[in-house]
């Protein structure tokens, strides 16, 4: 895995900047690039009647795009050979609206989700209050989960193949809302969604037989399909706590609706990071399966699953790094043809980006938009150490993302970059 990380880092480095002297700075930005892989077993996978299942996932996260590939297969199924299930999916997010008065940010994001064979979409609006609290409201079309973007605010995901599902899917079309709050190492949240599901049922019309003494015509029946709609209401509460190597995730919720029995579900996951790149996890729930989630209707039995994660980096994304669309996500130092070192900041969803620091004599200077969500910030960087802050869409000043930080003598935190 170390070699994998090295290859990725090298490839990223070569793609970003060929100057070896900038290697250190390019290796450490917060560009949300993450690659995970893992395996799991599910001894109680009721849907396959197999004693267990194996699953693995590879996940790559970029500022506006998350791509994932899953593969799962039953282990020694009693129903004979069953092929592995391969899933490929991705979520693309794009900005719709943004407003950022003091301490509150309203972000509207369009989330388009693709999962093997189906293209679905949804839109989410988020209101963030400070760094720790927020509310999301969303709608979906198709099977896309309205929380697909908001969910990035929740706790670090458990090891791969052990999908902790605090936001179960509802009907094909629905609306939802949720809140989250972070208090130190603890994150808690709740959500409610209502979905409208199309049901098709067969209506049989009987025609009695007609007969005479000599001829008997048997009774006949016509079958026609009738479509009607029913609502499905989902609610859940979840909490995630990470301290040191130990992570705990608990969740519970209910599902109720027309044509459905009201069910409650709970699940919990304990994660232990053995070494930085390897984590073990144990997860259990009272219904569903570890592969398809608690409300997947693939079985009503509980499940117990153990998983192993191999991660090139930590599996968790700093909260907000991906989801908080307007904030800057990373930076690069590039060398112009004339030899100048230029500061390029990645902020795909920002409509405006300002920079300030000792380079600008602490004046607020606007950065110039480039393609691909990149911004070029003035002025050219001379050799030395520089303190830099950036601000997206007239929001708060923040340290240059991905850079080293230092506490300023005047109280806040600034980014530190070294040009050698």
């Amino acid at each position, binding site marked *: 895995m170390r070699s994998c990380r090295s290859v990725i880092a090298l490839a990223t480095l070569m793609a970003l900047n060929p100057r070896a002297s900038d290697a250190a700075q390019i290796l450490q930005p917060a560009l949300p690039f993450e690659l995970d892989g893992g395996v799991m077993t599910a001894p109680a996978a009721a849907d396959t009647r197999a004693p267990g299942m194996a699953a693995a996932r590879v996940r790559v996260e970029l500022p506006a795009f998350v791509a994932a590939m899953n593969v799962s297969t039953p282990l020694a199924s009693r129903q004979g050979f069953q092929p592995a299930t391969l899933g490929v999916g991705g979520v693309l997010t794009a900005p719709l609206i943004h407003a950022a008065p003091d301490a509150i940010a309203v972000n509207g994001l369009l989330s388009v989700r693709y999962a093997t064979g189906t293209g679905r979409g949804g839109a989410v609006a988020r209101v963030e209050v400070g760094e720790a609290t927020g509310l999301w409201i969303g709608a979906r079309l198709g099977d896309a989960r309205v929380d697909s973007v908001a969910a990035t605010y929740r706790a670090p995901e458990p090891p791969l193949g052990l999908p902790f599902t605090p936001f179960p899917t509802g009907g094909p079309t629905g609306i939802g809302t949720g809140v989250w709050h972070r208090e130190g190492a603890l994150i808690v949240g709740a959500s409610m969604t209502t979905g409208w599901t199309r049901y098709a049922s067969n209506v049989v019309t009987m025609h009695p037989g007609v007969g005479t003494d000599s001829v008997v015509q048997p009774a006949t029946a016509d079958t026609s399909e009738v479509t009607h709609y029913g609502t499905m209401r989902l609610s859940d509460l979840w909490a995630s706590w990470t301290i040191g190597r130990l992570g705990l995730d608990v969740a519970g919720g209910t599902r109720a609706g027309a044509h459905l029995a009201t069910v409650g579900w709970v699940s919990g996951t304990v994660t232990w990071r053995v070494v930085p790149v390897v984590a073990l996890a144990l997860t259990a729930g009272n219904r569903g399966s570890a592969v398809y989630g608690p409300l997947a209707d693939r079985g009503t039995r509980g499940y117990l699953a153990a998983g192993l994660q191999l991660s090139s980096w930590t599996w968790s994304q*700093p909260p907000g790094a991906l989801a908080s669309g307007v904030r800057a996500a990373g930076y690069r130092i590039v060398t112009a043809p004339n030899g100048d070192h230029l500061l390029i900041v990645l902020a795909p969803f920002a409509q405006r980006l300002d920079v300030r620091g*000792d380079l600008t004599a*602490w004046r607020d200077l606007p950065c110039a938009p480039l393609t691909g969500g990149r911004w070029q910030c003035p002025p050219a960087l001379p050799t030395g150490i520089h303190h830099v802050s950036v601000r997206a869409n007239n929001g708060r000043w923040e340290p240059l993302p991905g850079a*080293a930080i230092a506490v300023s003598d005047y109280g806040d935190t600034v980014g530190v970059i070294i040009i050698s």
Partner: protein
Amino acid sequence: MRHWRRTSARLIAGLLLTATATGAQGSAEPPLDSATALVVERIIDGAAADGLPIAPLRAKAIEGARRGASNEMILRVVAGFAVRLRVARAILRSSTSDPELIAVAGALTAGVSKPAAESLVAVVRAQPRPMPVTVPFVVATDLSARGVPADSALAVVQAVLRRNGNETDLWTLRAAVARDIASGGDPLDALMVRSGFSRAHQPTPRSDGTRPPPGTP
């Protein structure tokens, strides 16, 4: 060289008054009053006379003015940083670059003790392949700003270098620790895990509750 720096200092102090006054027109920030500007000029002049870099001192003054800090605070910050630059030069002793001085002074600002800084300088200079002290001190300052006790951060940086680590290893360590902390991890735990040290190897906390840096008896 010193003559040039002294001349530059006077020039910069003059520019400082102008810059703050211009800033006041543009963004309603209060300029330094003439008495404050005079004291800043003397501090910068003294630094120039001692051969210290004056650009960061000027930047501190301008930063304070732009942020609307009081004149007293600006004076305190500029004077304090000049002192730390002098301490940094005493730590580095031999000929050194401005970035190195600034990096060490920044670490001192973050709470790194002088003996710990001297120890790290000695380790960096004992590396088989020469390297500036800039990155080790910037990484230690970063870790400290994220909540790791300053001397613990410095000790771990030192340990990484003793294990033949290089600047890239330090940046990688910094990034990993930053991610763990952002995910809710305890800063010291994150540093220990990511650097390969076990918390069990940590010395017991002192009676005042502070934790001595790893490697100390």
